């Protein structure tokens, strides 16, 4: 990096650094930063501790966005990467690790392109066109989630058939399998989630079971397609299997729904999809499945005629973090779980099984609170005409008025979005009024919908019209039926009438894990939500990246530049067309190496391979096998599911199906490439406020304007 400066004056002002002279410093920074997120890739992550040396504070992190959030990013490129990652996290809540990894891998690829003397516009044009073309191809490979549901249905059917036709030896195996399945289902329909330690066991068992299913399914699929039979969504009656019969009976009791078998099958298919989307995070996904089940059950209860698709509303999920309780106690509870004082908890217990009258307060419940936009006047003097001898303060008076208002409307429960005045809270408990603070906006919205209460800003606004009814309060109890108390706070649960609001209670005795656990839960929830909304998913476990590699190989093998719109691009690239074909192969090869590195890291992280070299060899072998006699587009969905090549990352996971979200993945790629190309096209960094001291220090590296 060349550094120029010619200012001697010590003025805080604007300096600029030259980023690109010879080696591009910005891209190097990007590569170095992205390295930090490598170990977060894949189902087996290693977490990181971020230490602040000045105050010895540390944070535990499992995800790229938290890592970047906690780092002190002084460089502009680091800041840019952080902004990109946070923007992605804000929209999708998942996929940031892929984004960060590819940003690093592709900036390394671009550095190599620059090293080989390829002009910047050519790199930009070929890379963005290459990714666009690849994305289009990948979108064609997406699997509709209905197919996955159908597949699960088929599995059940096939198993049932197998039960009736197979030899006794086989029968035992299959029986074992379906027993496991039954056990698994019970664990799902039970409203409790077992702990991580026991879960890992059940997941292993599940894996085994699903692996069996997959084999059966592939057989089924091949026989079906050979006989030309259409795989329609047939509902198979499970009359021959006592296991499935008994399960139906079982769920009938639990679900209390008349649309039993349809609903039941839907739950099963969701489980399969959800497990495939969990990417090794069974703790979070089991809570999500439970939340889904509670919400689905609720919507069915509310409307029997409703036969629409799966209903899953992420906006109606909140989390409550309870430190100091062991992880086995994590569960999903209908309603809003929050912590209150011991006195309030006693009152909550007293309210058990009562229909409560509820009001909602949009801001703080205190004397000093004023709505946003109200500034008051500073130049007003209050003049006391007669001395006040009662000695009551403004706040006492206000609290008295507030209590009177609440009592006159016979309110039992006040849900406040912000904080509530402690004096008022205390007096209210004495008058059997429970005030719950810190309700999130979506909680208030749900209570407004389900109880009919109208949220207000001031307690003086309350009238009969604003009061809602039908709310319930109870003490939140652990699986063992005991209440929890930590630091003089007790968890209570507030529910609206037939509300689909659920709270995921996240517990751990290791406090520093809680944040990561909460993040994991939300990641899983959003993955499932995206999949259900888009109705399609990508084959996961690196299969999609393998397809990309193969597709790019095909693009390189094609002689002419036909991909994308390079010919129609703006006139400045007219002169480039000759160049492009010359450099195309190199750039695309380097770009696909980015994906290869992604796969290799995935394999190394999941301990399939010990070295990157080994992983690259396996990938290259796979690629060679794939190319033999396989015509590229279109790759049909059944072909994908049948894929015969040994699939790297899923081998050890018992052939269980793994899925990725479509838009999340594609957008992560695009944003990763965007940030790389932005940095590539940047040649100067302009810093707007250096302090005088810094100017002195950096005087050799800066140009002052």
């Amino acid at each position: 990096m060349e550094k120029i400066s010619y200012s001697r004056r010590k003025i805080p002002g604007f300096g600029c650094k030259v980023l690109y002279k010879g080696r591009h410093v910005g891209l190097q920074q990007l590569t170095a930063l992205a390295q930090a997120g490598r170990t977060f890739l894949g189902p087996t992550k290693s977490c990181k501790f971020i230490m602040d040396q000045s105050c010895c504070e540390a944070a535990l992190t499992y995800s790229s966005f938290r890592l970047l959030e906690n780092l002190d990013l002084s460089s502009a490129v680091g800041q840019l990467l952080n902004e990109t990652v946070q923007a992605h996290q804000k929209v999708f809540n998942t996929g940031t690790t892929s984004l960060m990894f590819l940003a690093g891998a592709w900036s390394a690829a671009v550095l190599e392109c620059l090293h080989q003397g390829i002009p910047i516009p050519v790199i930009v044009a070929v890379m963005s066109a290459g990714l666009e073309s690849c994305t289009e191809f990948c979108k064609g490979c997406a699997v509709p989630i209905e197919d996955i549901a159908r597949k699960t249905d088929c599995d059940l059917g096939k198993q049932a058939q197998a039960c009736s036709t197979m030899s006794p030896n086989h029968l035992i195996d299959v029986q074992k399998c379906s027993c496991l399945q039954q056990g698994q289902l019970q664990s799902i329909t039970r409203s409790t989630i077992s702990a991580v330690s026991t879960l890992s066991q059940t997941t292993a068992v599940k894996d085994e079971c699903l692996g069996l299913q997959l084999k059966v399914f592939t057989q089924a699929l091949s026989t079906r397609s050979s006989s030309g039979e259409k795989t329609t969504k047939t509902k198979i009656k499970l009359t021959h299997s006592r296991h499935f019969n008994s399960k139906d009976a079982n769920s009938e009791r639990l679900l209390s729904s008349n649309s039993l078998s349809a609903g039941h099958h839907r739950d099963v298919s969701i489980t399969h999809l959800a497990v495939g989307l969990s990417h090794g995070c069974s703790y979070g996904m089991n809570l999500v499945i439970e939340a889904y089940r509670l919400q689905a059950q609720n919507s069915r209860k509310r409307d029997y005629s409703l036969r629409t698709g799966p209903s899953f509303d992420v906006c109606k999920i909140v989390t409550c973090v309870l430190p100091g309780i062991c992880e086995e106690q994590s569960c999903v509870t209908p309603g809003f779980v929050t912590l209150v004082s011991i006195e309030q908890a006693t009152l909550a217990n007293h309210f058990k099984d009562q229909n409560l009258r509820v009001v909602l307060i949009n801001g703080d419940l205190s004397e000093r609170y004023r709505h946003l936009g109200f500034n008051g006047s500073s130049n007003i003097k209050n003049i006391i005409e007669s001395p006040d001898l009662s000695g009551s303060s403004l706040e006492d008076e206000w609290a008295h008025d507030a209590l009177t208002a609440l009592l006159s409307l016979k309110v039992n429960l006040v849900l406040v979005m912000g904080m509530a005045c402690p004096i008022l809270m205390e007096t209210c408990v004495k008058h059997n009024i429970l005030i719950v603070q810190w309700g999130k906006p979506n909680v208030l919205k749900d209570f407004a919908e389900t109880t009919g209460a109208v949220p207000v800003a001031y307690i003086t606004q309350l009238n009969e019209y604003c009061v809602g009814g039908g709310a319930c309060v109870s003490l939140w109890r652990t699986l063992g039926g005991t209440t929890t108390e930590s630091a003089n706070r007790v968890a209570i649960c507030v529910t609206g009438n037939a509300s689909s609001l659920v709270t995921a209670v996240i517990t751990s005795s290791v406090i520093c894990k809680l944040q990561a656990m909460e993040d994991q839960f939300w990641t899983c929830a959003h993955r499932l939500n995206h999949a259900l909304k888009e109705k399609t998913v990508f084959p996961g476990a690196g299969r999609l990246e393998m397809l990309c590699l193969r597709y790019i190989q095909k693009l390189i093998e094609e002689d002419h530049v036909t991909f994308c719109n390079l010919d129609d691009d703006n006139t400045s690239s007219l002169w480039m067309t000759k160049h492009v074909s010359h450099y195309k192969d190199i750039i695309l090869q380097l770009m696909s190496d980015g994906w290869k590195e992604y796969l290799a890291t995935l394999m190394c992280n999941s301990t399939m391979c010990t070295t990157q070299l080994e992983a690259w060899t396996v990938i290259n072998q796979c690629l060679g096998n794939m190319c033999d006699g396989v015509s590229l587009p279109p790759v049909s969905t059944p072909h994908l599911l049948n894929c015969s090549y040994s699939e790297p990352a899923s081998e050890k996971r018992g052939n269980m199906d793994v899925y990725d979200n479509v838009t999340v993945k594609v957008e992560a790629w695009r944003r990763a490439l965007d940030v790389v190309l932005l940095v590539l096209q940047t040649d100067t960094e302009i810093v707007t406020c250096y302090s005088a001291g810094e100017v002195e220090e950096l005087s050799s590296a800066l140009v002052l304007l």
Partner: protein
Amino acid sequence: MSRLAPKKPSLCSDGPLTDGEVCQKLSVFREILKSCYGPCGRLKLIHNNRGGRVQTTSSSAVLLNGVPLSHPMLKLLAASVMNHVSRFSDSGLFAAILGCTLIENTQRLNMASSSVIKIYRQLLSLSIAYLNSEDCSCRVKVDFRSSQTLLALARTVIASKPACMLTFKEREYISSMVLKAFLRTVPCTVGPNACLGKMVVVPIEGNIAQDTTVLTGLLVEMPEALPLSNTKRLSSSCINVAVFNVSMSGDLPDAADGTVEISCTVSPEAAILEQLLRVGKQMVSEHVGLLVCQKVVHPVLKQYLQEQHVIVVDRLGAALMEPLVQMTGAQAVASYQSSVPSNCYGLLKDVCVVSFGSKELLHLIPGEDSTVCSLVLCNRNETTLSELKCTNRIDDVLSDLACSYTEYQLAVDSFCRSLESLARSLEHNGGESLVDLSHGHRWFIQASSPLDSHWRDLVNRCGCGLFQKHQSLDWAILGDKYPSLTPGADRSQIEETTPHLFVLDSFPAKINALQIAVETANLILDLKYIIQDVN
């Protein structure tokens, strides 16, 4: 405690351009701007070194706004360019680079600045006269029968901003949407005082560019409670609208410097609220279905109106007031102390909820022939979106259009060298720029062309796409000595096909940029003393 410090005397420095340090600042500034120019321009990262937002840009508006300049001379240059940009939203870099280059080239001339200034002035008027004349070889008439020319113009502007990170398809799509929005603002009936409507840009971060869309009417933030199903309506197809530009938050009117003394028994807040509720009652009795306030509405008034099925939209912001007033025909009410005159109300056809990604907005739908529309502009993140916002104005192109990268009516070396170096700065990858000797257009050749080949074998089409190579053309390297040429208006060689690949610039914007550049350079050249107040 206050402290008195003696005022420092003003600082006077003479001959700012003779100071080496100032000249170096100017040349760094010029290099920064120059490297941003054109569709392949390099980007700049602007940040404050304190973990603030990072801006990635190559646009003059962001660059000059985001960068505090230290020297008054640079500030002057930046200010006049910013003024140009605020009027035309285009050709800012052109003006700034030309200004810098003119100043620097003149410094090397060693001539009296007064005479150079005179010559420049004359050259400017000659150039403008030529560009306005019929035989100008780089002017394209807008064909209003088809959208191609306008589309090419929009595309040129968007393509010149690489920091938007748009692919070819996305660029085409956004161009067409911008044009669509622009055409919506053209009134259907042409009367004596017909004027263009308003286009409001609604930026949405996080969605992909293909989600960009154009809607008639305005989009506003969703109110918390929305009585959509039973909104008060005048008839089946209209909603009465009241618009307030005064704060209805319940604040006391400002008492200037004085102090108001109020007895404790009197509550000024309650008194104001009473007034507000009185206005509320009037709204209800006069069948207002939608109340819009530029500032905040008191929650109590809001609650009252919502109970009466009136939609309340507050915090509209000053920017949306004018289009709202234009669209509904309402008059903005500036006081709630007295009752609202009935002729202040406006009309809307309907309101509905639209959602973009996770964001929900309230769509105010106007009557049939409204010229107000909203361009919902989507891009992946804040950086790319804010860059895209800069590109969105093509209002001023209705007169005439010209392709003007290529103005080589040369008279004085310095003047034309400045223009030439400007044209050359479109190339950032070591390639060479040529000029043809009959039209004076600019042609590219790539950096690593074989040395022994003819120009003819290396070029294909000129930079703006207007001319293709043919036998009678000759080329010279731009910036070298070449025989003087009179770019003719030989239009026979211009292709008759639709100019979908043309690179076009707005004619008035370019003319003004040229004017600004030369006049600012003249002004700076004329500077003898700088007097700075250092207090």
